[in-house]
């Protein structure tokens, strides 16, 4: 989805100037600032009735400041490439082989996809069944643990979460198709 891939090229050593990942980070921040800055013009600077600070003021100032800082950082990076820590540079792990890289990347992709899939499925399958399925999937398919271990973990998750959230805290967790209201009426 978002995030992980944000302009983070691998497999090249950092050049002295204008590293793409850093440029991308700065550009994203500048855009964020610009977005809020421009957006703030649909809200008044002061509240009309009493002249107090309005809803547009803070986002306009902060948005403009972020836009300017983002542009300044972009300029600095493009011109000098001064290396500062925490500037958005992605470090390289040299000690890894390509094969290891691929495994790690695949695992990350699968886990990320599983997270999104879980969030999509919860309204349909209910919170606890979905999460138990997620645990089962992660432990078996991704981590390749043995069946008994994986099953125990998933069932454990189901039972403990049910006891904690359902019974003790009485959180109305979504039930999805297992909602008795749905079946009780049939």
């Amino acid at each position, binding site marked *: *989805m*978002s*995030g*992980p891939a*944000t302009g*983070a090229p691998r497999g090249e050593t*950092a050049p*002295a*100037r204008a590293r793409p990942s850093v440029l991308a980070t700065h550009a994203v*921040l500048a855009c*964020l*600032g610009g977005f*809020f800055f421009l*957006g703030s013009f649909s*809200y008044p600077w002061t*509240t009309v009735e009493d*002249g*107090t*600070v*309005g*809803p547009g*003021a*803070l*986002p306009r100032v*902060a*948005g403009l400041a*972020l836009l300017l800082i983002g542009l*300044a*950082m972009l300029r600095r990076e493009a011109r000098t490439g*001064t*290396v*500062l*820590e*925490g*500037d958005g540079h*992605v*470090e390289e792990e040299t000690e890894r082989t390509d094969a*290891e890289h691929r495994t*790690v990347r695949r695992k*990350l992709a699968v886990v990320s996809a599983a*997270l*999104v899939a*879980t*969030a999509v499925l*919860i309204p349909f399958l209910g*919170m*606890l069944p979905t*999460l138990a399925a*997620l*645990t089962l999937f*992660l*432990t078996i398919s991704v981590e390749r*643990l043995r069946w008994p271990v994986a099953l125990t*973990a998933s069932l454990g*998750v189901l039972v403990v*979460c049910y006891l904690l*959230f359902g019974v003790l805290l009485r*959180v*109305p*967790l979504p039930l999805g198709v297992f909602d008795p209201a749905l079946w009780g009426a049939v």
Partner: protein
Amino acid sequence: MIDNLTLGFAAALTPENLLWCFVGVLLGTVIGILPGLGSATGVAILIPVTLTFEPLTALIMLAGIYHGSQFGATITAILVATPGEASSVVSTFDGYRMARAGRAGPALAISALGSFAAAFIALVALTTLAPVFADAALGFGPPEILAVMALGLCTIMVFSGRNLMMGAALGLAGILVSSVGVDVGSGTPRYTFDQVSLFGGLPYVEVMIGLFAIGELLNQLHRGMATPIRARFRDLLLTREDIRRSVPATARGTLVGFVLGCLPGAGTTLASFMAYGVEKRFSRNRDQLGTGAIEGVVAPDAATSSGSNANFIPTLVLGVPGGATTAVLLGAFLVYGIQPGPLLFEEQPTLVWGLLASFFIGNALLLLLNLPLAPVFAQLLRIRYSVLYPLIIVTSLVGAYSVKNSMLSVWIVVVFGFVGYAMKRMNLPVAPFVLGLVIGPLFETALVQTSALGEGEILPLLASSGPAVAILALALALVVGPAAVRAVRSRTRARRSPEASAGAGGGAPDAGAGPAPGGEEVLDAPRRPDD
């Protein structure tokens, strides 16, 4: 005073009350451990359970939950970088590093000890001088709160390390993200794109679960998973050195937490961040902060603890909750027919003093419960990460959902999990973003109120308030000035080649808050020098 306390202890020390206090503390710890479910939600959920009790017993149990969950939230923050509550985010900075270095036991133990000491001091102040502090807090109107929030925003500088621009940028990004939702002053929905679910804004508890818990988890997966830690027995215990270093840090944290706790609305999250900022500025070992220094664990926890106890000052004396949880507790008071306010101490002495006495008892029980348990909790890290991380995902998602019973929360956790992972991969400091997110709305509220008081003008009111000017001067002198000087200095030192960047921290004789790439006591985190 002593009479009153004796009365209180006599009321609180019945076997039944003790039992429920213990149950409350225990339940609270469990609730605190669950990500997202903080003290506020825990107390709110359990109020109906206590409805059948005697008022004092019920309040004692609720207060136990309150104290317990504050502490429980720290446990997972230290062990697996999953803050159970916004105020324990800071514990992930150094506590998690300590845990990864095999010192989870001492980190948890000092957190318990520091919290207890801070709570004890705050409670003594609370029981003896509550009305005095409440009076002082009354003098803190919007202009003064505005100055405090400005000071809070300045602390972003402390958290940005040398890359001041990036820190400021991320702080601003946090403020901007926090402006999503209905505006505090005029009530205009901003940046909601007609999505009513966004009217309440992006809830920061869920954002933090995403940034920290899921972000760190993905990061660990990327780095080939954290290895199980088998700490040696002596690593599980506090050393004399640990305690020696913790005492001044606890004292500073307690003070910061108490002052901010007295102010209605400032909350304990800000207190924990500020306490960490103070350590970065004044601690003798400030160079080690961020690499697993014990001061960085104990000071924020002490601040949270003293702050959450000091929160009861405005709650009991003024009837204004000092934080989200005391707001819920205030609701519970009303359910039991207790109307906080100026006459509370006179009209219902048994109840109030019993409650205060139970705070002492609750904190003592918490210490008794958690000090021996610290090494036990530390054993959690012996679980294989391949089993541990699915559990972290599951509890994060259920926990986030339970905060508001909303699927939006689950999505926020997932999305900000990716954002957090990206930020970690790119070495971006997360703290300024979080701080901006927390302070943004508080700052804007104070801004709007000040301008409403000054009929549209802000500066004259600020300038005419002595405390506000003093706080702003403090902000300039202690935070902005030194940070700017450091930034300029480091900028002239920064080299152009990437090799030099590694050398800049380790090689150069370094006076500032030092990044410590490859610091020996850090097992797994040579990067993110300053988050």
